[in-house]
Structures are given as C-alpha cells and as structure tokens.
C-alpha cells in the first residue's frame, strides 16, 4: 500500500492516507513537536443500526437496542482472559471507547510507546471474545450506566426532544438501550453484529501526533488480521419512511433538577447529502446559529437581559446523511417564553431579512473555530473520523468554507428554520 499525501496551505495541516487491501482506510496526521499522540479506530456502526441486511444475505437481521454500545464494552475482554486496559496501562496509554448514533470508536492517547500502543489497539479490536459469563457480567455495569443517564436532566431533555422530532427514525432511541433490551443480548448476537460491522472495509483508523507516517503504516499493515472486504454495502434499515412533520411540538418531564432545562429543536428535512454538500450545509447552519442566537444577537440580548437565560445557553447542529437537526439549549425559569421569543424571531427575520454585517462577523468566527479545533490531537482525530464515516473529508473545509456566500445563508435560513418543524422539550424540577 502506498501512502498518498496532501497539505492544506491555508492551515498548514498535512495528511498521509491510503486504503489497505483488507478495505481498512488509514489516515495519518503528523503534528510536529507534539508530545501527545492520539489514535482512533472506528467503525461505521452505532445505536441506529439495529436492523440491517448482511452482505450476501437476503433476509433482514433485527437485534436488540443498545447492542452496538454493549459490543463496545465487551471488546475489552480478550481470548486469554486478560483485560486490554492492562496492556495499555503498561505502555502508559490512556485508552477509551465510545458509541454514538452512527459510530463506535476505540482510542488511546499516549506520550510514549506509540508503536506498541497502535499494535495493541489494532489487535484487540480485531479479537472478539464473547462468552455467556463475560456477557452477563456486563449487565450490571451497563445497567448502572443507564441509571446514571436516567438521573441526568441534560440527557433526558435531549432524547425527549428527539422523540418530538422523529416518528420512526432510530436516532430517537437511547444509545445504551434499556435494562430490558440489553437483557436479550447473547454472545451469538454480538458475534453476528461484530462479523457484519467490524469488517475492515467498514472501518477507518486515524493517527495524530509527532509520528513517522511510513513507520506507522508499517505497524498498521503488520497488525491487520485476515479480512475479506465486503464487495457490497451493508444495507441499513433506518426507517421505512420519516415524515417531514414533527411528532409533537412540546414535551415535559420532571426530574431532580433545580431550574427547568429546555431544548428547542428544528428538524432538518433537507437530507440525503454527503461529501462537500453535507459539509457546506453544516457550515451554513452554524453561521446562521451564530447570527440568530449568538451572544451579539438581538435575541440573546433580549433573553439574557430579561433573566430568561443564563450563561448555560448554546446551540448545536447534528448532521448525518439521512437525518439532521438543530438544538438550542439552556436553563430558564420559563422555557415556553424562550420558545416564543425564538420562534417570533424566526418570523421577524423571515419578514425583515438577515444582516450582512452579522454574516461577515460570524463567518470570521467559524474560521477561528476551525483553526482552534486543530490544536488538540484528540479533537482533530475524533472530528476527522466522524466526518470521514459520514463521507466528508475534513481537509475540504477550507474550500467549502471559502465558497459560501450570503445568498447561500439566506436560502439556508428559509429552508431550515421553519417553526412548524420545531419542538420544545423541558425537564422541570420535581415539586412536592
């Protein structure tokens, strides 16, 4: 395998990349002078992938909710009964893993023994070992993880919002599943999911740090186990159909919190993009979020000065090729008043238009954010692989960003901020 090279002149970032005959995609981002190294090995497989057709099969496989996350926990057990944390610890690495809606990733950061640590990372993620005993042992641990989230207001307000926005799409289901769903998980089911989604042609590895790319390539190649790449795609069944409309515009729940938490969502129905088009849409929406609700905006001033929001106010945009949504969150004594002010502002801008000054300032802000995100090896690696697994090249950022115009922003505003497709989720304090 030959590594290819590219460099972004605007940021100075460099990339070495290639695809191994096993199907594994490899990316190495050298950071001169850094002490810390970061590697992340991920598969395009997350909590939304509970129904799928294995390549070569003709029937649909349906597995319990929460299985991707469960599988992530069980990858740390090794065939010789050892725990892979022990190996990383010996080499001074800080190892971890996470499961999100659309990916599962295994990672470490380390300031020494980078070669041994990369070899360990590749080895354990390619060595599944599930038995009845090891699988049942995890029920208690993940059960406590689920309970921890049950008491977490920020988590509940988020998933309740997704349940307002989505009728059928599995993004509305909790990543770890439920105590009931995970009770159905068996070693056979785990092997079935592993053999489907951990095929190396569904995976990528990213290494960031002061490393020698050729040497890293050698270590990766030496540690790839036998793998037949799939010749066709894994068919993922997310939802028969997802209506454009939201399910409901309001939901509330009570939990042990001091002040009501709120999250307002806008369902994005302009989906189906990947690559540069998807990246462009996300930059446009982030610029808009800054213009409409950033700290210098009229709405922010109004909300803050009337005591309706505090410093814990923020916006975010989550995107994948097949679904996307905006979330505006905070704490407020009166979430419904916040929702009214925000939807009124959308109506006002629809009539009066956006300010080009605001646009120019927010475009600067986005550039600063992009540069700042290149400081930290963990942040670059995670961002890079997340984008890659949704078909976006991190190194396209500059080109896409430069081409965005005020016209694009105006069009995106009309397309995305539609009050009928918004919802408000609230977590209230328990009153006795």
């Amino acid at each position, binding site marked *: 395998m030959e590594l290819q090279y590219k460099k972004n002149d605007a*940021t100075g970032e460099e990339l070495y990349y290639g695809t191994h005959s096993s199907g594994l995609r490899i990316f190495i981002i050298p*950071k*001169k*002078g*850094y*002490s*810390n190294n970061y590697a992340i090995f991920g598969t395009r497989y997350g909590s939304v992938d509970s129904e799928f057709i294995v390549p070569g099969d003709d029937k649909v496989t349906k597995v319990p909710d929460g299985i991707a996350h469960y599988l992530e926990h069980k990858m740390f057990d090794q065939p010789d009964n050892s725990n892979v*944390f*022990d190996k*990383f*610890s*010996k*080499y*001074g*690495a*800080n*190892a971890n893993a996470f499961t999100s809606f659309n990916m599962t990733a295994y990672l470490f*950061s*380390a*300031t*020494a023994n980078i070669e041994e640590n990369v070899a360990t990372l590749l080895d354990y993620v390619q060595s599944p070992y599930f038995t009845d005993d090891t699988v049942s*042992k*995890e*029920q208690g*641990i*993940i059960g*406590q*993880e689920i*309970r*921890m989230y*049950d*008491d*977490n207001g920020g988590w509940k307000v988020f998933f309740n919002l997704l349940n307002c926005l989505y009728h059928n799409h599995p993004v509305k289901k909790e990543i770890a599943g439920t105590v009931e769903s995970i009770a159905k998980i068996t070693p056979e089911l785990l092997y079935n999911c592993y053999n489907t989604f951990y095929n190396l042609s569904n995976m990528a590895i990213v290494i960031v740090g002061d490393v020698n790319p050729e040497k890293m390539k050698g270590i990766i190649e030496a540690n790839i186990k036998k793998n037949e790449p799939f010749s066709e795609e894994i068919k993922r069944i997310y939802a028969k159909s997802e209506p454009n409309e939201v399910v409901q515009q309001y939901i509330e729940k009570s939990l*042990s*919190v*001091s*002040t009501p938490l709120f999250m307002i969502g806008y369902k994005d129905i302009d989906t189906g993009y990947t690559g540069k088009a998807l990246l462009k849409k996300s930059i446009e929406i982030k610029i808009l979020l*800054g213009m409409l609700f*950033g*700290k*210098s905006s009229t709405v922010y*001033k109004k909300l*803050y*000065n009337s*005591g309706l929001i*505090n*410093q814990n106010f923020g916006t975010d945009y989550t995107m994948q090729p097949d679904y996307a949504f905006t979330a505006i969150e905070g*704490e407020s004594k009166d979430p419904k008043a916040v929702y009214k002010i925000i939807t009124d502002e959308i109506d006002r801008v629809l009539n009066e238009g956006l300010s080009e000054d605001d646009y120019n*300032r927010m475009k*600067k*802000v986005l*550039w*600063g*954010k992009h*540069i*700042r995100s*290149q*400081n*930290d090896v963990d942040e670059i690696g995670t961002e890079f692989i997340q984008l890659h697994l949704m078909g976006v090249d991190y190194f396209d950022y500059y080109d896409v960003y430069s081409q965005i115009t005020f016209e694009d922003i105006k069009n995106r505003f009309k397309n995305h901020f539609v009050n009928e497709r918004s919802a408000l989720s609230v977590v209230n304090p*328990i009153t006795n």
Partner: protein
Amino acid sequence: MNNINLFYVPMNKLKTTTVGVYIHRELNKEDVSKNAILPHILKQGSKLCKTPEAVSKYLENLYGAVLKAGVVKFGDDQVLRFEAETISDKYAPNKEPLTYDLVKFILSVIFEPMTENGGFIKSVVDIEKNNLKTRILSEMNDKRTYAMHRCIEEMCKGEPYALSANGTIDEVDKLNEKNLYEYYKEAIVSSVIDIYVCGDADADKLQALIDETVANIEFKEAKITKTNLHISDAEPKNVTEKMDVTQGKLAIGFRTGILPSDKDYFALMVFNSLFGAGAHSKLFNNVREKLSLAYYASSAIVKAKGVMVVNAGIEFENYQKAYDETLVQLEEIKKGNISELEYQSSIQSIINSLTAYSDLPEQLHNFMASERVYGTNYDIDYVKNEILKVTTDDISRVAQGITLDTVYFLKGKEE
C-alpha cells in the same frame, strides 16, 4: 510596584494562544459570593467595550476569541479566573495582532470596569445576582459532583474549604452595585494577580501593555492564602440524604495527612493513581470489573487540603457491598499487595498526563497556578522525576496514614 506577574510559556507548535488570569483571594464566608460574582460582572463591559453586545462583537471580530470567567477553589485560596483563547497571529488571515488585542481587552475588563453613580451598573449586577443564585441551586443537578461536594462539606465543617466556590444564596442577597464596587476597588489592589500566556506572543510587548494599563493604580502588599491541612481525631461520620433519584451516589471521604510540601506528596499521587484513578486502578478493577457494582468507581485527592474522596454510582441496596470493597482495596495497599503491573501502570499514568501538559495550554497554566498556591513551585520535569522514584513501600506507607473521615450516601426517596 504592582502585584501582577506575567508568565509567558512559548508553545509555537500550537495554532492558538491562551491566556489565563488568576486573581488570588482568601476563601472566607464573608467574601466568597463577592468573589464568585465579580468575574461575571466584569465580563459584561469595560471602558474598551461598554456593553455586553460590544464585548461579544469585539471577540467575534477576533475570529471568535473565547473568554470564560469564573471562580475556583485551590484549597483555601479562592481564585477569580479568566481563561481566554485566540488563534495565534500567524494564522490571522489579515495579519491582525489578535493576541495583543485580546490581552488589551482582558486587562480592560479587569482594571477598567463600567460604573454609574459610584457603583457598578445596577441592571448588570441584578442579572448576575440571579444567575449566581441559579448556579448555586444548580449544584445539585449533577448528582456525582454534588455527592462529592457534600462529602467534602461534611468533612471540613467549620473550615473555609467547606464553602462552595459560589457561596450561598444568603450571601448573594446581601450584594448590591455599591458594596460590590467598594469590595472590587479594595480587592483589585490587594490581590496577587498572575497572568499566564501560553502560545506565540511577544512577551515584552504584553508586559509593556500591562505596565501601561496599571500605571496609575496604587497597589498594596498582597499574598496568596496558605491552606491548612484537614485534621481531625473524630470517629468516622455517616451522612445519608434522600432525593428523587434512581441511582445511589456513594462518596467516601478520607484524610491523607499529606500536603504538597511534604516529602510523601509524590507517593500520595502514585497511591491515588493505584487506588482509584483510571482503568488500571484497584477500584475500577474490583468495584466495577470484578463485582459489577458500578459503571464508575474512582478516587480523587484534594492536594491542597489533604483530603481524598472515593465516589461511585450504585444501586441503593449495594451500599454496603461497595463501601466494604472500597475499604478492602485500601487495606490491600496498606498490606503492600501491589502487583508489578499495577505499580508500573500507576506511575506511567501520571507520567503520561504530565508529559501531555506541554500540548495543553489550559492544563499547563492550571498546573503552574496550583504549584504557586501550594508554595512548592515545582516544574513538570521535577515532579516527573520524583514520581519515578516512588517505591511500592512508599505507597503502602502513605496508605497506612490514610484514615476514614466521612461516608456520604445519596439515595432515593422510595424504599
């Protein structure tokens, strides 16, 4: 003469420059909420940018430079802290002097506040009083942190360290634009103010800017508050609280008897790593992996205070099991049952974190600031060197000096 110390740490490999300002105050009941509110008031406007909107636009024009204001406790030293970050000048698309403009802004925020009628702006103070009250009430939202705070509060009852860095609702109610401004005028001239700049900057130019900004201010002698070790000969105390929660939170507080200036300090750091700080630790491998009682079970030391807190999220009925296992694992270390792998992993874990600081400006200035507070002023290489010298005998000896102080448990209302 002024009380401002500039520390410049070149980190040219980074694409940003980070500024950390630490204004050191004594933690005490009377001033705690004043200190807690001040950074938030100051951030709302200054001579340079008179309104919150002007502040935001100024920072946005610096390509979205970030400024966070808040307050933290380093033992009995309460710090008003400003943390800021901008892309470094060499990445400024139009060669703007971003770092200089950011520091100029921060200095204006600290030394040139907006005032009216001999006080701060009343409307700003009123909003920030409400926000601070919300923050105080919100301390119960994250139950894991809350349980740890409650444990420390119970342990250190009667000592300043029992205070929350935000203070109390009662103290906030006493504040107004006049008494706060009076307090500010005294505090700003009588505090040690440390400014860390990490990244790529012209330190001489920044020093000149500082000197120029404060040229007309008359400073008084200032020092950083020393923290007293938490000592007690009382029997262990049990505290149980009930809330509407589905998971129990256990927090077990211990006295370590060791301050950063003690020779056993490095052994205590390694002990903590081995006991409960990471996936190599005894708590992780026994409370979580062996007994499946918890998703997280870990220990943390409050270095300045000689206190350690173990915490875990568990089923209510597993309280005794989790408590017993924690003390069994402590006993194991006291007896010297430490494997070679555990020992090496504990050392390497600390070395790895310390080495990574050279890429992480916020962690780096936080490390330097805490060393100033402890009065030790160790540099990273010295600490690493001392960590490498720690033996398993040292770890056991330190463990033998650790005593149980307070057991806090948060559980559900229905049982």
